[in-house]
């Protein structure tokens, strides 16, 4: 199967500020790829290069096998046939919803019916005569998506499409857009800084860090098996616990875990908060005291200060929202399951150190 979009060795700089160093990425047909990166990591620049608005210093971009950007080649944006949905939608303020969606289509009967189809697809058929400023943020996003899909592009690029929406709206718009994109059978590249969004929406997640793709893979794969501790912490709450590795068993004070990483004996393992079970009182396992409980409705995140040193000064444990542990409660923690392990470099073990590449400007 050919890839819908192929990016190879892309490098970009603005003046002396390097934004992308060496980015390679393959986007399979009919799939959603999320490019995940901290703000300023060059995600938007990557999309703008693919769309043809910026020219890279070096590297090649292929669309359905055809080179659209490369040494001596620059297909102008209007001849790429990509769908592009910029941040905030960028709807044309002087045109109605219908005119925005039909902007790329030739005038005629065909246009009207296609616009109707697209508006049905995004569920906004009633709003065709409205102007952009009369729409909510989520509606603007959906119009922008319909407009990008008008010419049936093989690849659609979405730049932080949900960042301007409030949390309550975000989940529903996200689900709606995912449904539309899967129905339209195009490949999608979605850029975001929200790991939850990337993990829940994408078939493939590519983490952009320091101008490179640090890791690409399925959401499960990169969440469960990040390539390094920094990435582990970037993708979600991570407890990086000291371990002794022997064969496929990593022994920690929380219990033994299965690991397939080939590492020396002294190692750190990644234990996600949901892998740890917690119980009141003194039992077998690691005892400690509850320092903080962060209640989030459906679940709670408990911070525990362990009695024995195990690496990080505190551990995070995820529990059901129905349970509750008062601060100061004596608890016992146990961990199980599989965990990736890395050689212990004694400096890099602060579990909550965020992964930040230097900002672009």
């Amino acid at each position, binding site marked *: 199967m050919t890839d819908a979009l192929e990016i190879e060795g892309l490098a970009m700089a603005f003046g*002396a500020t390097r934004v992308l160093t060496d980015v390679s990425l393959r986007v399979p047909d009919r799939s959603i790829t999320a490019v995940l990166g901290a703000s300023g990591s060059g995600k938007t620049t990557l999309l703008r290069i693919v769309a043809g608005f910026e*020219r890279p210093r070096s590297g090649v971009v292929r669309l359905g096998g055809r080179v659209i950007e490369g040494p*001596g080649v620059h297909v102008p944006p209007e001849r790429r046939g990509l769908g*592009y949905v*910029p941040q905030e939608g960028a709807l044309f303020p*002087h045109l109605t919803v219908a005119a925005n969606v039909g*902007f790329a289509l030739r005038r005629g009967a065909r246009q009207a019916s296609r616009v109707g189809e697209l508006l049905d697809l995004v569920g906004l058929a009633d709003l065709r005569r409205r102007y952009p400023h009369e729409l909510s943020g989520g509606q603007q996003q959906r119009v922008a998506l319909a407009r990008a899909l008008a010419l049936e592009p093989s690849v659609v690029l979405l730049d932080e499409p949900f960042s301007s929406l409030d949390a309550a709206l975000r989940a529903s718009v996200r689900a709606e857009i995912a449904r539309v994109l899967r129905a339209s059978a195009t490949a999608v590249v979605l850029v975001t800084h929200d790991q939850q969004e990337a993990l829940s929406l994408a078939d493939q997640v590519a983490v952009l860090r320091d101008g490179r793709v640090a890791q690409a893979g399925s959401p499960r794969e990169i969440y469960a098996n990040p390539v390094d501790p920094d990435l582990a912490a970037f993708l979600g709450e991570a407890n990086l616990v000291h371990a002794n590795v022997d064969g496929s068993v990593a022994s920690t004070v929380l219990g033994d875990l299965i690991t397939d990483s080939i590492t020396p004996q002294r190692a750190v393992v990644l234990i996600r908060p949901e892998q740890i079970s917690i119980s009141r009182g003194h039992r077998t396992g690691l005892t400690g005291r509850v320092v903080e409980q962060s209640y989030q409705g459906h679940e709670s995140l408990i911070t525990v200060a362990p009695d024995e040193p195990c690496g990080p000064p505190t551990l995070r444990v995820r529990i059901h929202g129905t349970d509750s542990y008062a601060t100061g409660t004596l608890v016992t923690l146990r961990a199980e399951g599989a965990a990736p392990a890395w050689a212990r470099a004694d400096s890099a073990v602060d579990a909550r150190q965020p992964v930040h590449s230097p900002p672009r400007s």
Partner: protein
Amino acid sequence: MTATREAPATAPTTARRPLPVWRPRQGRSAALYLVAILVAAGLLLPEVFLLLQAQNVGWSELRRVLLRPLSGELLANTVELSVLVTFLTAVIGTCSAWCVERTRLPGKRVWGVLLVLPVSIPDFVVGYAWHSIFPAFIGLPAAAVVMTLALYPLVYLPVSAALRRTDPALEETAHALGLGPFATFRRVVLPQIRPAVLGGSLVVILALLAEFGAFEILNFRTFTTEIFTELQVDTSSAAAMALLLVALGIVVLICEGLSAGRGRINRGGPQASRPPTRRRLGPWLPPTMLALGLLVALAVGVPVGTLGYWLTHSQHTTLPASTTLLSATLATARYSAAAAVLATVAAIPVALLAAQRRGRIAQAVERSTYLIQSVPGIVIALSLVFFSVRYVFPLYQSSALLVVAYALLFFPLALVCVRASAMQSSPRLAEMGRSLGYRPLRVFWRVTLPIIAPGVGAAFCLVFLSAVTELTATLVLVPTGVHTLATQFWAYQTNTAYGAAAPYAAVIVVVAAVPSMVLGMWFSRRRGGELTVVGT
């Protein structure tokens, strides 16, 4: 972009060598840059001609003219008047704008139109009105009063626009932090409208430097009136004073640049979504209404009333034949429309460049077009006369030259309007258009132009209006045998034939009032939630 400065020192060692290919990085907008640079170059021509002429005149002659006692007297007159009028217009313009925009004043829209109306009454008509009522009212006091009444809308307009743009959340936050209404105005509102007040004041000073008609009528001598007089007798002395006048204008521009540079309001982020809160006036309502009423009575009532009086009370025989009036109106409208088209079309590329591109070239182009603001009409006329007489004689006394003079003179007005709209049209929208399959020129027609259309329309109106009311350059450049409204008015007025002059002034006011109303409405309309696109 401060980080770029230290970056070379830490240049990464893994830097790839750029591929040896031709890279049309700016290529997609090369045409835009080219046209904008041409426009900028064209706008520098009056200064170039002036310098050429000064070189012709010679240094010793320049010195003789500039070191005369008369020059000192003129300079003193100019400075005194500028300080007085700038202060008065800033106070009156800001206060009246605040009353209209921020209080529960009854009849807000009516006040909005009435207060802007003086902008459409030429200064020389205001001067003529006052002088025909009080012939003894001359010199500095008269000039200060007349110019204040004629020019305060130049502060009122930008300040009221700025007041509408401010985010009410900022003021609410200030109140929540314990600041009273006065402290909130001083520490929160004033900093936000400061650029508007300064910008308006700058335009006021430049208008004062350029004013001719009102001062001539009120017998107040400035460089402009003196240049006009010398132009008939001694062109080299006129050129010397023109140089000084332009230098004064440039000093004003630099002062404004130094003080306003820091005051730029950050226009990123979501715009104010709610209209600002309005204060109850309570017991202050009657005095406020009275003050605004008095202002309108003096600034609009006096000139309009005087015109009405002369129109109805003059002897029938002194009224000009209606055919002359009609042909003068048509001539004026023709020249003004042509100039408005020329100036607006020239302003579009510069405005797009200034509003949407960063980089040294874009900045240099925009800055260089500022310079023309400091060149008064009389100097533009002088330089074009010199140029045509010396190099292209067929152009001398041609209609084209007058149209070019108007376009040069009022280009800054066109630029301000178009740029304001161009700011709303993010380059992202044009990119969107291209990614949807249109070539750059088609994107310009289908996306950029419709979005900046309000600004383009306002620019046309404003230039048209200004050209209709223009007197100084018209008197110098009008082709022999052609009569415009302004030249006819001036001819009668000079002979104190107030009654005969009145119809021409009346037509000028009426013709100019229409676009000014449109403009006022454009300024006061809240364009519902334009989409602000924030780039990353």
